[in-house]
């Protein structure tokens, strides 16, 4: 049940009416949120509802136990158990086949003939999101950053809250639990903002779908020219941004219509002027999660910073999918982050920066974008050999000699779509309040954007990030 499908519209209409007009009081509304969210989840695969509830119940019980005990050793044991449960669930459902296949590949390379079968485990949708979310709760309770909740219902409703359930943003306990405890009311201004975010999210998602065939040009077909390969890589960069940030905006908008605030997840990432800056703007809820719960736990900036960054980014890459391409993508970004930090420490670089000032920024932006695009090649390629081949093609090696005659037009379309996605975000951030305050401008814009999406939207395409 994707946000841009008719079935979801029906579901949300029913849910909203019940939430707003039928279920009164905190308890009934919490039950409605929990049951509604499980129905939403069942839209993908009802068989995995027990797994979701198991994760939630386990962390609820463990967090309560952590809060009750005063013994640090006991607290640590309970936290370890929570880590074991959550990471164990991820290991079984997401990484078991990958691990088996990797070991088999390794043995084959060593001349052995492994004959074990893969488990063919079905990946439960959203598992990476909700296990991280659930895990962060017990860690927060362990660290004393949040209180263990008494109400299992509230905790499960927060964990399964449908706007963010399957593709984030990854919420912390302190972000949503207090809201579910107080159940805030939507205001008209908040609702208009929700409409705006939902509409812009849908618009970006629609543009992302339009780019799908251009992406295939570079990644899924025979070798093409340099120009077409760059077009495909650019298209993927725009597609994944439109798809994921579009989904997040829709999630934020839907939550706002119900009265809940979810944190932002993207901040115009392709305007970043360094890899560090990029990770402050891209999938913010994941990067801050990794920073707070992994990087800092490894030692953060205090000691072995480069090692910590590399481990964090490699695991961050693996979080995206059980494949070596994702790990390589994480390591690639880890290298970029380490290199950026190291360069920033050089006196020469500091001198250049202070002298060149703002004139250096376009160059920094272009270089960052170039590196991020190279990263997307690793992310999107089916395997590392293909990625390596594409790196060569992008730089003129073994490309098809001539691009198709219409290739430049395709590039224009891809660039236009990419710029448009960022432009609407920028306008929303810069002028959103002013536009929302003027109903005569706001509602026609909502209508036009929605009409565009309804006309050309591709409801059968899945969101790319659901697979993570």
């Amino acid at each position, binding site marked *: 049940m994707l946000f841009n499908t008719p079935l979801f519209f*029906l579901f949300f209409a029913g849910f909203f009416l019940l939430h*707003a007009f039928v279920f009164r009081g905190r308890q009934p509304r919490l039950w409605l949120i929990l049951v509604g969210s499980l129905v939403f989840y069942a839209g993908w695969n009802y068989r995995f509802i027990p797994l979701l509830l198991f994760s939630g119940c386990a962390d609820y019980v463990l967090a309560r136990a952590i809060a009750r005990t005063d013994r640090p050793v006991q607290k640590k044991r309970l936290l370890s158990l929570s880590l074991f449960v959550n990471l164990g669930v991820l290991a079984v459902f997401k990484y078991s086949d990958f691990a088996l296949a990797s070991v088999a590949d390794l043995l084959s390379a060593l001349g052995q003939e492994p004959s074990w079968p893969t488990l063919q485990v079905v990946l439960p949708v959203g598992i990476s999101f909700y296990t991280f979310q659930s895990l962060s709760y017990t860690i927060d309770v362990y660290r004393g950053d949040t209180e263990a909740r008494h109400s299992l219902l509230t905790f499960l409703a927060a964990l399964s809250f449908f706007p963010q359930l399957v593709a984030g943003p990854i919420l912390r306990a302190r972000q949503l639990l207090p809201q579910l405890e107080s159940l805030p009311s*939507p205001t008209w201004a908040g609702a208009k903002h929700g409409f705006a975010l939902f509409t812009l999210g849908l618009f970006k998602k629609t543009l992302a779908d339009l780019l799908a065939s251009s992406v295939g040009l570079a990644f899924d077909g025979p070798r093409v020219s340099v120009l077409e390969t760059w077009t495909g890589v650019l298209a993927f960069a725009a597609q994944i941004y439109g798809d994921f940030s579009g989904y997040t905006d829709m999630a934020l908008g839907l939550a706002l219509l119900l*009265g809940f605030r979810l944190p932002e997840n993207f901040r115009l990432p392709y305007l970043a002027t360094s890899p560090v800056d990029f990770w402050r703007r891209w999938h913010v809820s994941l990067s801050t999660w990794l920073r707070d719960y992994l990087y800092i736990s490894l030692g953060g900036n205090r000691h072995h910073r480069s090692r910590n960054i590399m481990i964090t980014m490699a695991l961050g890459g693996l979080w995206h999918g059980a494949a070596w391409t994702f790990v390589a993508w994480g390591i690639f970004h880890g290298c970029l982050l380490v290199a950026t930090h190291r360069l920033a420490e050089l006196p020469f670089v500091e001198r250049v920066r202070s002298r060149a000032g703002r004139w250096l920024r376009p160059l920094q932006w272009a270089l960052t974008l170039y590196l991020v695009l190279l990263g997307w090649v690793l992310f999107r390629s089916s395997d590392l050999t293909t990625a390596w081949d594409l790196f060569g093609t992008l730089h003129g090696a073994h490309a098809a000699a001539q691009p198709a005659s219409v290739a430049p037009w395709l590039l224009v379309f891809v660039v236009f779509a990419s710029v448009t996605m960022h432009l609407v975000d920028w306008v929303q951030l810069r002028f959103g309040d002013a536009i929302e305050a003027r109903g005569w401008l706001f*509602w026609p814009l909502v209508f036009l954007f929605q009409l565009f999406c309804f006309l050309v939207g591709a409801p059968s395409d899945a969101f790319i990030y659901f697979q993570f």
Partner: protein
Amino acid sequence: MTPSSTSSSELDGRYQTLEPGRRRRVDLGIALACVLVFGSVAGTHHLLAGLLDFNGRPAGLLEHLPQLASDHRDRQKVVVFGSSMTQAAFEPALFDARLDELGLDVVSYNHGVGNLNPEYQEILSRRIREALEQEDETLALTLVELTPFQATLTRSEFTAFTRDQNHALLMTTSELCDVALEDPDRGARLLTIRHVRNGLSAELLTSLPGILYGALSNRDPSPPPELRALEERRREARSRFEALLPAGTSLDTDGWNAGLRGGRLDRARLSAKARTALEDWGAVPANPARMRADLQRRVDQGDILELHFDETQVQAFISLVKNLASVSDTIEVILLPQNTDWVRHGPQARARLDAVLTRITAETGVRVRDLQHDSRFTPRQFVDTTHLSVQEGAETFTTILAEIHADTLRRASDARY
């Protein structure tokens, strides 16, 4: 700039706990805004889709089915069912006239619809069968075109984007509800396409850039002057002929012409000048660059030379033959003439096609008539690599078809009366 669309500072003023009365007013406002926005969007889309009229021919054919069953009950009915190749090649008026000359009273229909793979044709065949069964009517003769490249894996993959559109258009509401019970997401989508989107799926438009890119990529962007001149001559010749067409007639292949029972032309109604213009148009040779690009498109989108068949499509074709056989006195599968200058199957493709034909005959008991290499058809009679031309090809094909089946229809007529 603070790039924070939903930062706390911005939203703090937007959220507070309201007393129940005020909250209800806000909730009502949200509900009303949803209804108005989505209602006006859906209404405008409905209107635009109606104007675009993407489903002109299949929708027109579906609308006509009750008449197919109820009209001309005293005459022998012939249906030629197939793809755009049938649509281009078969002229009901000419067919009826030729059989009339042979002393047979026949009314024929062109049920050729473009862009429908056997999977979708099968659904359409159900609608035809139901319409006839409802009126307890049968067809004297049904000819079912098998278009080999429409039943290939490549074709199935390429046309996947039309699946929802075709299912939503061709299925009955009851069938759509069955889909919804099995897969609520898809069912809701199909019902929306049918009832809210006015039969126009989003994928149809969304896929256009990719298709356009593929099509344009196969074209020579700067053809030599002589080919450009040739194209210009063809365009002018066509325009001259179109200007002389009788009222209510059009070469447009998108719609359903009820007066011509699905055909494009009634040659008997053409003036002498129009006939000359048609001949002049036919005399302009084909543009080899355009033919090459067309062949490449058919290879890319339909595997026309290698013919790796899709089991689902083959099975669907067998089902559709059975559907139509149940309401036909005589039924035959035909392979339309092939433009042998461009489309030549190698031994492996031929073997694959033969295997499919053998299977069709074995499973349906229906005879297959192969006109692919019939010497009465020449490459000159084709408008592209697959479709017979309106100038010569359609006339030859229709006449030959009438002559081939005259005896069958005569026997059926004798038996009937």
